[in-house]
């Protein structure tokens, strides 16, 4: 078997390979469920019925789309610049921490409180990602550093809610007091879809697409990602691009964190309750979109179905929520393993 390069693969070929790889991934996951003694038909049936089958389910998908869209759009940009930020989980948590600190302790006038919460979230997430960008300058691989920063962020959240920020009115539990009402985000009635964050996500996904394809920064970013050597000769600083990309993607993850605490929980609580693994799932959102922030408008809801479905599997079939990791991992593996078929045709027989 050998691969013959296809020059300039068509969009149709790319789409076909992408869809095929997701189908293969879902079949592989079905096999894993069968091995675990679960009927794949029942698993997939439960997931679909409870997510797309009724209005409550759709609202649950919508709620999970919000952070995935924000983080995924940022990561799409980061991956184009070959900055493998795997720490969106930690950046989301820091965004939540900064947002909570602002909502609880800063004397911001009422009308400005919600914008301040978002700005704080952006700063928190952005700063956390900048740590990785700074470490990259001394040759620390950002995959490792952002992962370590995830674990550190979890410990920080636990420390705050069990220690200095522990609510005065809560007994036995560890979380902060409830935010003042002025910091709550409005939601679509009867759901947990905090629409200001959703609008922000849509606008930013489109904005980042514009930035990537039309701006000078976007051009520099693509050159640095596709041909670091050429970028160096053209005088483009890949370190500066990495820093800006880190700030942007971390900031977007931070916005997602601010949205979760201000829109849904109205307090800072345990890390595992703030994020259902949005940071990792968003990696697949960005990869499925093949590095196009705008395409995350399609891929984020798709992965939100899997996250919301994972919740149902936990409740209805008593499966561990970790099954979501299997979906994520298998889809990711199939996606990147299939990439060769986008740019190559397979010829059978010996060269």
């Amino acid at each position: 078997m050998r691969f013959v390069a296809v020059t300039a693969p068509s969009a149709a070929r790319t789409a076909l390979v992408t869809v095929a790889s997701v189908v293969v991934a879902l079949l592989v996951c079905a096999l894993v469920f069968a091995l675990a003694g679960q009927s794949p038909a029942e698993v997939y049936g439960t997931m679909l019925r409870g997510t797309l089958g009724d209005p409550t389910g759709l609202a649950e998908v919508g709620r999970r789309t919000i952070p995935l869209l924000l983080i995924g759009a940022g990561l799409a940009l980061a991956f184009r610049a070959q900055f493998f930020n795997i720490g969106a989980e930690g950046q989301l948590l820091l965004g939540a921490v900064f947002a909570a600190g602002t909502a609880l302790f800063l004397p911001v006038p009422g009308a400005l409180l919600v914008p301040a919460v978002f700005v704080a979230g952006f700063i928190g997430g952005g700063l956390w990602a900048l740590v990785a960008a700074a470490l990259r300058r001394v040759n620390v691989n950002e995959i490792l550093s952002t992962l370590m920063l995830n674990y550190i962020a979890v410990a920080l959240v636990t420390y705050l809610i069990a220690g200095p920020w522990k609510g005065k009115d809560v007994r036995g539990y560890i979380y902060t007091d409830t935010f003042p009402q002025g910091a709550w985000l409005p939601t679509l009635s009867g759901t947990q879809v905090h629409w200001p964050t959703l609008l922000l996500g849509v606008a930013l996904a489109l904005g980042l697409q514009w930035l990537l394809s039309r701006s000078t920064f976007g051009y520099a970013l693509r050159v640095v990602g596709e041909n670091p050597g050429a970028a160096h000769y053209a005088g483009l600083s890949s370190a500066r691009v990495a820093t800006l990309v880190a700030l942007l993607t971390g900031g977007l993850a931070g916005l997602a964190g601010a949205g979760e605490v201000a829109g849904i929980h109205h307090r800072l609580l345990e890390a595992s309750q703030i994020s259902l693994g949005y940071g990792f799932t968003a990696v697949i959102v960005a990869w499925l979109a093949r590095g196009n922030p705008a395409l995350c408008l399609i891929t984020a809801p798709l992965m939100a179905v899997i996250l919301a479905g994972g919740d149902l599997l936990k409740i209805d079939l008593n499966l561990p929520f970790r099954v979501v990791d299997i979906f994520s991992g298998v889809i990711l593996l199939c996606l990147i393993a299939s990439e060769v078929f986008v740019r190559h045709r397979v010829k059978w027989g010996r060269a």
Partner: protein
Amino acid sequence: MDSIVVEALVRALAVGTPLLLACLGAILNERAGVVNLGVEGMMAVGALAAFAVASRSPDASLWAAVGAAMLAGAALSGLHAVATVTLRANQFVSGLALALIGTGAAGLLGKKFEGLPLFNKVQDWTLGSFTISPFTVAALILAGLLAFWLNATRSGLTLRSVGENPAAADVLGVNVGLTRVLAVLGGGALAGLAGAFLALSYRSSWADNMVGGLGWIAVALVIFVGWRPLRAIAGALFFGFLYYLQFRLQGNSNVPTEVFSAMPFILVLVVLALAGLRGQAGDAPAALGRPYVRGER
């Protein structure tokens, strides 16, 4: 005083054992040019496989349990081999997917083993006032063997040449793809063995997320020790000692416990930054992370 030193050493060796085994596995595949970030996942399936076999009955063979762990680790890394060597996928992202699949699958398949007793745990050896797990002894011997094999044998040289200059190795008639696949499978087996230690000796139980980030620390350790198996012993002991301090100081001081749980990860960052500043990242095999395609460079 003596007893504290002995206790510290015993503890450091115990936590250092899975780190050392997993780190040796990562060194093996990275010296052949393949990064595998899936160590955390391979350790998880290794631990589950070992526990599943050993908890079957009071007289289940521990050798079979260890073998199952190594097979499970190798099987999972086989996916990585196909994706990255045959299909030339991005090694970093594939490894990440592997970590997700491994921890997820171990969590799903292991649910029915949670809280079950282990009839047949691996007994520690006692040397005077000192106890040591057979796994620890095996890990130390394996480090020596891997160092000897890489540096002093022809096949070890072949493996290193594939990691440093696959095109040159190819011209000399080395099967680059096969060498890399075997190195990845070997790395997976060692990560599985590290998981077996956790399930059969260290914790002698099964719990979801029992690997708890040790796999990621092992991956970082490889860079810290400059891809050298003998230095990995010192590196694993160092991090094992940090875990001991964490255990020792917890509750004995006013420092919040979260500081201790974050400590290993903060130290990994510090250590990696120091290795980077010293230029140690330059010791990496030259072709590390890059798929080999004949006729391209």
